[in-house]
């Protein structure tokens, strides 16, 4: 309770200082550091509303150095950061030219560790790059469908266990360009709480958001569905043509896994369609990395539209939509992306192909163990790392959100002042973390988000955990009221080691 109060106090103080600074700037007492309107355009209506930018100017600017940190190496389990300093309190940055080497990477979405530069692993990608070049210069429907795309689509369909799939050049665009193709004016969508990307292009479509604190609340979803069917469209009361439920596999800000079995049973009962966005969960959950459908042991046919991206677990770029052949044919003909946007570039497609083959055991690469287990090693390592990391954090007394099996671990910081302090001190200890605040999260729930990777070794995780322990005590981050276990060593041995 007191935490919430102090958080608001923190924001309040920041706001007051913000007003003070604005006042001083307006009266010329303080230098204006942000770029200004041109003289000739001073009579135009201002481009940005003053108040819209209040938050950016005054609160965000103070801790801006924690975001957009440039790196200069592969985003693997460790990376090199470019050192940058600011002489004027974050208004501008200057690179010193030095790099901070071997910073442990807890921020990149590198779940299965496919972001690597091992020449052996990248052999096929190098070959394809040499053969195909980097661009396509055409759209899918014109001259842009290469044999590589056909190969990739067949592989994706096989991987997921569905009839057909279609791939797109960009993950964000996959949602923003295909959902409008699937739904029109007289359709309704039920948005299950969504942190996701690409949803902003949905305007004429009647959609209902379920607020974030209702993740897992099946009763509200059921009530919304019933109301939709019974009362029909607002004002005219005509029946809706279709109802689509949009959910994410893993919610990236909460770390929780969707409750697929309940949603599928609801969808069957009320004859709605289900659209599952597995941006974070494909490759990262499930016994063989096939996502939440496998994690819950369900049939992929139950989900009408399976969507996912290749940016996260596969270390490439792009997205896919998979499902029945009729659906994919429709998208080939009517998706905005197929007609107007360039197709995926071949070396990136090859990277996805090799990653998927590795996961499916279709190539002969060994990862150091016997061939039959090798292809699962990454998925298992990720599972082990996730469970270990989460358990230790819990024991230390931090508040973390999310399901125990999800590799996205949000650690609550709450107070705005701690956001900056946490990220900077972790960087001093050579660990790179991601912190998020308002507006990506609710105003009182700023957090640090860790992404566990299969490429992290036990030592790296231990380094991070020790640093967190120290910092947690220093910044008073251990809010959890659960008492710490005094015998951590008892769990470790029995639960994890036997899987080797």
């Amino acid at each position, binding site marked *: 309770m007191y935490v919430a109060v102090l958080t608001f106090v923190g924001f309040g103080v920041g706001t007051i200082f913000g007003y003070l600074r604005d006042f001083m700037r307006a009266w010329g007492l303080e230098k204006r550091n942000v770029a200004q*309107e041109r003289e000739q355009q001073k009579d*135009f209506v201002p481009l940005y509303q003053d108040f819209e930018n209040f938050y950016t100017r005054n609160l965000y600017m103070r801790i801006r150095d924690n975001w957009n940190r440039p*790196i200069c190496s592969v985003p693997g389990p460790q990376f090199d950061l470019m050192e940058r300093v600011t002489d004027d309190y974050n208004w501008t940055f200057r690179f010193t030219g030095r790099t901070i080497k071997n910073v442990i990477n807890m921020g990149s979405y590198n779940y299965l560790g496919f*972001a690597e530069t091992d020449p052996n692993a990248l052999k096929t990608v*190098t070959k394809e790059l040499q053969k195909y070049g*980097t661009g396509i210069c055409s759209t899918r429907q014109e001259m*842009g469908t290469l044999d590589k795309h056909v190969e990739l689509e067949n592989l994706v369909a096989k991987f997921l266990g569905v009839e057909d799939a279609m791939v797109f050049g960009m993950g964000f665009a996959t949602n923003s360009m295909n959902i409008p193709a699937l739904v029109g004016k007289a359709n309704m969508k039920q948005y299950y709480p969504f942190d996701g990307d690409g949803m902003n292009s949905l305007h004429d479509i009647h959609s209902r958001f379920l607020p974030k604190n209702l993740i897992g609340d099946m009763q509200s979803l059921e009530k919304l569905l019933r109301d939709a069917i019974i009362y029909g469209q607002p004002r005219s009361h005509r029946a809706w043509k279709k109802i689509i439920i949009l959910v994410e596999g893993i919610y990236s800000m909460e770390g929780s896994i969707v409750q697929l079995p309940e949603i599928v049973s609801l969808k069957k009962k009320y004859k709605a369609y289900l659209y599952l966005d597995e941006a974070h969960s494909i490759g990262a959950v499930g016994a063989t990395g096939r996502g939440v459908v496998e994690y819950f042991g369900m049939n992929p046919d139950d989900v009408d539209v399976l969507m996912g991206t290749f940016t996260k677990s596969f270390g490439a770029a792009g997205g896919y939509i998979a499902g029945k052949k009729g659906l994919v044919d429709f998208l*080939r003909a009517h998706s905005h992306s197929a007609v107007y946007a360039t197709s995926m570039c071949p070396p990136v497609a090859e990277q996805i192909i090799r990653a998927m083959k590795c996961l499916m055991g279709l190539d002969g690469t060994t990862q150091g163990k016997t061939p039959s287990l090798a292809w699962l090693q990454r998925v298992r390592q990720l599972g082990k790392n996730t469970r270990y990391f989460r358990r230790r954090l819990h024991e230390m007394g931090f508040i973390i959100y999310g399901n125990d099996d999800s590799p996205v671990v949000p650690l609550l910081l709450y107070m705005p002042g701690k956001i900056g302090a946490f990220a900077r001190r972790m960087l001093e200890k050579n660990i790179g973390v991601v912190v998020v605040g308002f507006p990506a999260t609710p105003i009182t729930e700023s957090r640090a988000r860790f992404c566990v990777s299969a490429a992290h070794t036990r030592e790296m995780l231990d380094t991070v955990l020790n640093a967190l322990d120290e910092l947690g005590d220093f910044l008073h981050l251990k809010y959890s009221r659960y008492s710490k276990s005094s015998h951590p060593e008892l769990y470790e041995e029995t639960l994890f080691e036997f899987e080797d």
Partner: protein
Amino acid sequence: MAAAASVGQQWVLVEMVQAFYEAPAYHLILEGILILWIIRLIFSKTYKLQERSDLTPKEKEELIEEWQPEPLVPPVSKDHPALNYNIVSGPPTHKIIVNGKECINFASFNFLGLLDNEKVKSAAQASLKKYGVGTCGPRGFYGTFDVHLELEDRLAKFMRTEEAIIYSYGFATIASAIPAYSKRGDIVFVDEAACFAIQKGLQASRSNIKLFKHNDMTDLERLLKEQETEDQKNPRKARVTRRFIVVEGLYMNTGDICPLPELIDDIDLISANMENSLASIGGFCCGRSFIIDHQRLSGQGYCFSASLPPLLAAAAIEALNIMEDNPDIFHTLRAKCERIHRALQGISGLNVVGESFSPALHLRLEDSYGSRENDVKLLKKIVDYCINRGIALTQARYLDKEEKYLPSPSIRVVVTVEQTEEELDRAASLIKEAAQSVLN
């Protein structure tokens, strides 16, 4: 003691009554009304707004049982042109293998021929060795690489502006840039023939859109004057409504250029696509820092999407190098465009649409043959005729139902720097032949 207490109470009572008499009348009336209101609220029944409870639970169940949704997607006929697309084996370079036949490529937007350039490829290879393939994160969360910063710098210098911002997908560039500035209630004047990406950006911004006739400056002026009179009627609203003009440099749908000098003396924002000439993927916006900086926090496609893979950024940088070192390729390209533009004139049945120096032309049917479907079928026959004889062409594709001003069906002819003069002439004569055999 009790007596003293009761006397004390009496005193308080007297004071209270005195206060009543001394208070001004309006004060008493106000208090009286408030008290009555509170009493009413306490005793009135609360009612739920949602419960239009004229339906019994049994009726509700019946409604749910009976409701049948439409199928998720309508069935697509087997001979929809999109399902019988051309498959390219191997890279889509100058000599392209379409559906198994080897052709000269007149269909991919590879204007400067950089798709196959060795220098570009080796720059990409070097980047691949250093960074791997993907960036595994959006720009804000360790997805910013030094190659991205370098590319933005180079683009800003090349375009002679203060700053540039790159996006990882061409379509998303303009579709995210427009809604970052123009919100509900603002006014955007846009050309009719704007491409689909611009239309989507405008839709996302929820602003008032005023279309002016393609390249018609007098029409634009008329609309602006109309707006001015509106403003004078309502000056308060006018003070907070922002106004934007959106035009395309080289219109993809018509192949001509907007009359820039007549339009404006200085441009605020230039948005471009790296997927064509720069043989990479992605797009960028450039302009003054004041404007571009805003997109870093509010451009949807920038903040919420993974950044451009570094090998593509390195390829784009190398392509920029080549463009800066060899400025004469632009002259060569222009000469070739004019050559083919001349050669394609006078084909009976087909009109050439586009400026003479535009590297992407449209060939439209002179008269329609009934319906759009028939036109499309005829054009497909011409295209197939050409592919079978070694020239790869394609039809320009649109989403028929979604476009605001659907252009007529056409064949796209793309000129690249790699095509020799002999090939250009051969293509022109082949198209003439095809038109004659199909349309007569």
